[in-house]
């Protein structure tokens, strides 16, 4: 069996180099046809590497942690509250913020494709789009959480949000204890991408140092 797996591994590698060539050919064809500009593709890739990523979401979360009025706005109308900070990019047109508490732990999935709040978290990680996560998160969320090292007590409800519409979910993790006098800048370092998907908690002060 292991021999067979090696073989499949080799197959994957040839897939990848095939894909490099295939995608180069595709791009040159679409440019020649006038449908796209390579410079625009460069710019899109660049923006999602540098400007549109989980720091946007961390900004939203920390503002909710530190400003009660913003927290209320985010609960009542997440779309307006998030757009007010300039995070209006695509896959963020309709936002719902869900707040973790001792009673309920929220996590987000898209079982049918890869819906994800790009405007506040950037592009989804590979695991978020993978069959293991998409299949198991709705039927065995606690098992998935444990793989991430996230143990939710039996007495806390786990609520999974399957993103079947254009609504995009942002999880607001619980603010870690011992951060009462931290600045917004310090707090943002505790807000990981996974904590805003709900597969992890926000980092503790100890983890962040």
């Amino acid at each position, binding site marked *: 069996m292991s021999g067979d797996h090696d073989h499949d591994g080799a197959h994957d590698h040839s897939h990848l180099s095939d894909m490099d060539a295939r995608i180069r050919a*595709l791009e040159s064809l679409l440019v020649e046809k006038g449908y796209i500009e390579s410079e625009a593709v460069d710019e899109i890739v660049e923006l999602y590497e540098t400007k549109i990523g989980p720091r946007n979401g961390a900004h939203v979360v920390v503002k909710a942690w530190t400003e009660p009025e913003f927290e209320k706005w985010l609960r009542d109308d997440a779309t307006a509250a998030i757009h007010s900070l300039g995070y209006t990019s695509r896959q963020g047109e309709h936002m719902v913020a869900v707040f973790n508490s001792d009673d309920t732990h929220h996590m987000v999935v898209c079982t049918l494709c890869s819906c994800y709040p790009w405007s506040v978290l950037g592009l989804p990680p590979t695991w978020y789009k993978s069959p293991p996560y998409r*299949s198991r998160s709705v039927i065995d969320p606690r098992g998935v959480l444990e793989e991430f090292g996230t143990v939710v007590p039996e007495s806390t409800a786990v609520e999974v949000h399957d993103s079947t519409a254009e609504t995009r979910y942002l999880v607001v993790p619980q603010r870690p204890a011992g951060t009462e006098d931290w600045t917004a800048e310090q707090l943002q370092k505790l807000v990981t991408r996974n904590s805003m998907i709900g597969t992890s908690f926000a980092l503790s002060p100890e983890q962040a140092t």
Partner: protein
Amino acid sequence: MNGGQDLGGMHGFGPVVSEPGKPDYDVENYHAHWEPRVMGMVVAMGACGQWNIDISRHARESISPAEYVTFPYYKIWTEGLEKLMLERSMVTAEELTTGEMRTPPITVKGRLKKADVWTALHSLGGAANRPETRKQKFKVGDLVHTINTHPTTHTRLPRYARGRTGEITKILGFHVFPDSAGNGKGDDPQWLYQVRFTAQELWGEDKNPRDTVTLDLWEPHFNSA
């Protein structure tokens, strides 16, 4: 359609996390040079105005389940993009194989230029809500029973949530209905709700009685329970 994309509740795919407990697992979004190019091209091709997001989802889920569950995700996007362009005669199969243009382009609505990318991405042009032409039938707290339907066409009601009873937990707006728009039949906007199901209702009595799953579903997906 009950295709390879309808993964909710399947067993046997193995662990999600290969490095358990790593604080922010899988920081990189790409795993090969071609992947960001596909992402960027798919976004850029949207400006041509030849399809909507639901049609592009349906193109991706229409590949064989055997391919769907084995292909890297951006390869699924590539297959979907090529299918959409072939269907609309934007490219030919021969052109895709050779990478060389043999036929003139079709007329498209626009081409995205570098200087316009930031504005285009932030335009909210992809908003799915539509002017409300009627009142919603349901209110928060109503119990609803989803229909048991198995169309071969695009639907956003996954198999695991069909024929199940849940509770309306939010009214989300009057939105484009993908079960119409994804099949080329127009926006047909419908009221959209967040519906909460208990894990026990979806999966059986052995689940934690506190746990729940919400889905965002449109009025045609359910009836009063």
